[in-house]
């Protein structure tokens, strides 16, 4: 009966009592949690002042979570410059990770056994050891090699000469350590994208006379991106947080800045909250960006792209508005 007129039969929806109970329990728990977040506790001190000849005393209280301290340091110069280091480190390490990872993925698919085996060993090594150990390893590499010279072997031709002791500053160590480690993970992501493209696409490209490199650049990579982007977004977000390990090589990034401050003033929790809030803000921005990039590369793969959050919101508002304007007629069903 799809009628909406007067003869429509009223349909009584099932009452989900369990859902109401569960909702109530969760709501109470959330309210209690929020209350403790913003509760005040006694500091054990008493503040007294004299007015109109009488002395008044009352206990001093403080935010349990030290929100005033959080607020004070949230945009302090040390924290912001630490945040900047974190962002730079994330960007450069990911740039290395993505480009080197793509190269390793392409090497893995090479017809030359030695080339593909080398790529496999790289991934095996860098995925098989903790990134923390790798950071310490690069930080101390100068114990093994003092200098590195780029040139042609046997010919006495030299292009560049690098003093490793001077090169491996805390920042450079973190960039190299995190970037090389990331390349191992990115290579697997890129490889899964490359092999996800239908063989027929390669045949079609070949049949119109494209070279192997044209086929890779113009046909395979753009289609592989659809598979590569979502996990790469995860990797960027994960990298943002992994940069906090750079504390191991005495780099002062976001977390390092926070620890520096609290080691002086002992406001440990508020400063950890400051760092966490910044991590949350940046990951939120990154996730939003990821959504739009994914949508761009889904072109052609989906008949209709998924709605943007703004479109979804607009649709929801319209849906609710329609419900109200049509009054009871939606409560009556179209069965």
């Amino acid at each position, binding site marked *: 009966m799809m009628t909406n007129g007067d003869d429509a039969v009223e349909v009584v929806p099932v009452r989900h009592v369990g859902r109401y109970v569960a909702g109530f329990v969760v709501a109470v728990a959330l309210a209690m949690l929020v209350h403790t977040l913003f509760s005040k506790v006694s500091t054990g001190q008493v503040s007294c002042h004299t007015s109109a000849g009488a002395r008044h005393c009352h206990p001093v209280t403080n935010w349990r979570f030290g929100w005033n301290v959080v607020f004070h340091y949230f945009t302090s110069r040390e924290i912001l410059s630490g945040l900047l280091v974190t962002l730079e480190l994330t960007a450069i390490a990911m740039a290395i990770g993505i480009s080197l990872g793509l190269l390793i993925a392409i090497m893995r698919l090479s017809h030359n056994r030695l080339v593909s085996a080398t790529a496999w060993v790289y991934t095996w090594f860098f995925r098989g050891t903790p990134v923390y150990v790798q950071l310490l390893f690069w930080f101390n590499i100068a114990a093994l090699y003092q200098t590195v010279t780029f040139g042609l072997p046997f010919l006495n031709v030299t292009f560049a000469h690098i003093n490793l002791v001077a090169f491996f500053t805390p920042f450079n160590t973190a960039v190299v350590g995190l970037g090389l480690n990331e390349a191992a993970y990115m290579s697997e992501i890129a490889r899964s994208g490359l092999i996800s493209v239908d063989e*027929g696409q390669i045949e*079609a490209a070949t049949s119109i006379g494209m070279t192997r490199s*044209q086929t890779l650049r113009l046909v395979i990579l*753009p289609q592989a991106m659809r598979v590569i982007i979502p996990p790469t977004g995860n990797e960027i977000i994960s990298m943002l947080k992994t940069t906090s390990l750079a504390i191991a090589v005495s780099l002062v990034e976001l977390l390092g800045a926070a620890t520096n401050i609290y080691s002086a003033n002992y406001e440990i929790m508020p400063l950890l909250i400051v760092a966490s809030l910044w991590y949350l803000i940046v990951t939120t921005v990154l996730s939003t960006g990821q959504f739009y990039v994914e949508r761009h590369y889904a072109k052609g793969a989906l008949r209709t792209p998924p709605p943007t959050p703004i479109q979804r919101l607009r649709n929801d508002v319209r849906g609710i508005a329609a419900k109200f304007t049509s009054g009871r007629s939606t409560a009556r069903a179209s069965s």
Partner: protein
Amino acid sequence: MTTPMVATTPMVEAHGVHKSYGAVEVLRGVDLSVARGEVTCLIGPSGSGKSTLLRCINHLEKHDAGELRVDGHLVGYEARDGKLYERNDKQICAERSRIGMVFQRFNLFQHLTVLDNVTIGQVKVRGVANDAAVVRARELLARVGLVAKEKNYPSQLSGGQQQRVAIARALAMEPKLMLFDEPTSALDPELVGEVLDVMKDLAKSGMTMIVVTHEMGFAREVANSLYFLDQGVIEESGNPREVLVNPRSARLQSFLSKVL
């Protein structure tokens, strides 16, 4: 009598072509000759080597033995001083770009619009200017009846429409030879006709075509010659209007009794 060389050499010539995948011998000495401007149909049971032969002709697969010539040139090799020199990738790509291929599963570039599918080869392989490529692409899309779809992505088209775009994409390379690998086998029955119509038009325009097909009606109506492949050899060949009506070999008789 000085007939120009071009007019007399066949477009495709195969002598004793062999091809194996590991231990499986798919082509076991195939002889075939396709004259310029003619339509040749290859029929045969699945696994008989029809597609493999087609893929050897544009060097998507390397044949193991025998002689295979397209437009008078050896496919993939150059004969010099009594030796065969394997051609490099660039030469092979250049040769291949003049042989159009249409696949059973269309294989349109999924990330490109219909128009871009037809221009990409012109621009990136033949070095045609973008504007000229677009003009040519629109002409070809008009020819296959899909001008209105140029902004669509392949996933938004029906199978028949996709296959017509695939034909336009191949024609954009100005091929001297067109290969069709079961072009209607993946289509819903009601969409087969629109693709066959485009192919008939193409045949009328004088394009040399080799068509692997199960459409006996098309073979009878359009083809100049027909080859029946079975277990890697040409079992029977000739004028389709005779071969299909009066098959001599028992194998062709039994094949036709199953498909007709």
